[in-house]
């Protein structure tokens, strides 16, 4: 039949040749790779180890240090990628569950866990479109400017007391500065696309992100003033003595500062209800309207990587970082679990709250959040003046306040666990299990 006849396309250039070879031999290679995955993994490990040892022993005593840095940076990159991949899958599952759907179920064996990988493969194959009237170099550069700073922020984030790539006296400022560079990539993308949707998205992003940086920094400063250090390691170490020593429960100003920081961080990650820069209902897709293929994926990755980074900051500064609720059980897992929980709450917000208008976004920042955080900063500083051995009466009062705040926190966690459990039970009683047996992922 004429319709089914494949058009004769003359392949030109290396990329198309690679795609053709990959489509021809890819399945075989993949099958072989998976069959001998463990062997290959161990072989690579052995070869790497031997390489590092030989270089370190014979070539240059400086080089192993350099290689170790490279290994750690690659590990952090891999972690950030995994965060983005799991985050994108989780976003779809969370949105589906909140809307009584199932979400991706077919890719992979369990609840569509491989959906992000499949999407990634699809995006790699897509054509890399650049609008004719776009500013070419800036258009090409923008995704990198968005993604690379978000990755670089992980260089200063400690995962545990000794699990940090570089501990610096200004670690907190370093992370904030890198997250500020990210804004630039968004503006660059919006301007270079030469499309009105993109330009509107970029302008909204610029005014929103620059405004919300101030309450975000001020809320963090309340925590910094309570500990007296900008080093993230010091901030984490100050909260080693269990639940009641976490900074969020140290004084009422810190308790409120956590929530103001969280709201401001939602805006700085362009998450709903502040996702005006990419408001789908008005601006098609906002600043990344004109992007396709892997460049679009880079914007998507940057969003999830930044979400985890701001949640990690909230965890370290307010929620005890890598310290367990019980003293002495600290582990990097606690850090990852708490940050992942905060990321999950961000998703939960996105699918629960409606998007607000741009003027409401600015009003919320300038009229309410900014004065509130200024007051919190003043109050937190004043609290530090009186909460010391020189004022014994105030110290007693402060300890009572701490206990009450800690109990409120326990109550909130209990309420959440009860609510989620009861909701699950209630749904099971109403409709039974959502996952049907005939679905392949079930």
């Amino acid at each position, binding site marked *: 039949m004429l319709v089914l006849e494949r058009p004769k396309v003359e392949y030109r250039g290396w990329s198309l040749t690679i795609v053709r070879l990959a489509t021809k031999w890819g399945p075989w290679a993949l099958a072989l790779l998976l069959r001998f995955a463990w062997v290959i993994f161990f072989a690579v490990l052995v070869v790497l180890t031997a390489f590092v040892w030989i270089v370190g022993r014979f070539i240059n005593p400086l080089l192993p240090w350099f290689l170790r840095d490279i290994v750690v940076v690659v590990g952090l990159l891999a972690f950030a990628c995994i965060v983005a991949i799991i985050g994108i899958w989780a976003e779809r599952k969370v949105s589906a569950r909140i809307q009584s759907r199932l979400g991706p179920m077919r890719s992979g064996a369990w609840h569509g866990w491989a959906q992000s990988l499949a999407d990634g493969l699809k995006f790699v194959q897509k054509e890399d479109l650049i609008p004719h009237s776009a500013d070419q170099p800036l258009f090409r550069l923008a995704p990198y400017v968005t993604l690379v700073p978000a990755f670089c922020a992980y260089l200063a984030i400690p995962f545990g007391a000794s699990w940090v790539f570089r501990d610096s006296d200004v670690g907190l400022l370093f992370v904030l*500065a890198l997250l500020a560079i990210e804004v630039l990539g968004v503006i660059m993308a919006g301007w270079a696309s030469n499309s009105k949707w993109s330009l509107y998205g970029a302008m909204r992003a610029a005014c929103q992100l620059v405004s919300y940086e101030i309450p975000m920094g001020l809320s963090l400063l309340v925590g910094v003033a309570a500990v007296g250090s900008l080093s993230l390691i010091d901030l984490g170490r100050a909260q080693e003595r269990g639940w009641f020593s976490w900074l969020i429960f140290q004084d009422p100003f810190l308790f409120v500062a956590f929530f103001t920081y969280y709201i401001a961080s939602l805006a700085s990650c362009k998450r709903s209800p502040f996702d005006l820069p990419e408001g789908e209902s008005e601006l098609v897709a906002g600043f990344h309207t004109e992007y396709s293929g892997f460049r679009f994926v880079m914007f998507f990755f940057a969003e999830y990587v930044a979400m985890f980074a701001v949640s990690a900051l909230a965890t370290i500064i307010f929620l005890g970082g890598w310290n367990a609720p019980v003293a002495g059980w600290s582990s990097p897992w606690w850090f990852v679990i708490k940050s992942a929980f905060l990321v999950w709450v961000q998703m939960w917000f996105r699918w629960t709250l409606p998007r607000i208008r741009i003027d409401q976004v600015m009003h919320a920042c300038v009229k309410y959040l900014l004065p509130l955080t200024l007051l919190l900063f003043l109050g937190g500083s004043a609290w530090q003046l009186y909460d010391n051995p020189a004022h014994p009466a105030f110290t007693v009062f402060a300890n009572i306040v701490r206990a009450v705040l800690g109990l409120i926190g326990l109550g909130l966690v209990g309420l959440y666990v009860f609510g989620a459990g009861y909701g699950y039970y209630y749904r099971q009683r109403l409709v039974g299990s959502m996952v049907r047996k005939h679905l392949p992922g079930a």
Partner: protein
Amino acid sequence: MLEKAIFLLFAVPTVVAGVAILLSKNIVRMAFWLIAMLIAVGGLYFLMGAYFLGVIQIMVYVGGVAVLLVFGVMLTSRQLAPKLRPGPMETVWLAAVSMALLLGLVLSVAQVRWVQGPIASPNSPAEIGHSVMGDFLGPFELASVLLLVAMLGAAYLARPKVPVQSPEGSKETTI
């Protein structure tokens, strides 16, 4: 050797971006070149061990000033750019002023006897805070007053020339 290589890694982009600001015709490109230069200068601070200064450089200049600059530039129309050409008389004046400034800069760099030594406490924001609130309190306060004046001026320029009439006599005006 390694330090010199990393120095070149930051110094060359600084110079290239600085020249590119002057040579580029598009005003938004200029802004992005300026940002590249500011980031490279921040890298030089990091190389010198002044982490606080480098971080503040990126945070204030790249995250704040440059973003607002690009934001302002994006709001101006693209047809405005060709009108910004200086006239022949202005060119002479501009050349004279720039040459004088350049001469002053080069002379001052050449005259100063540079001391090469480790920074006293390179890694402590507390030291910087003490010196700002102690020895340099006067200049610090002066700078903050200047910023306040600039902010008041901006608010004055941006205020509506005609009082805004709210529709249907509602109390609060929403834009």
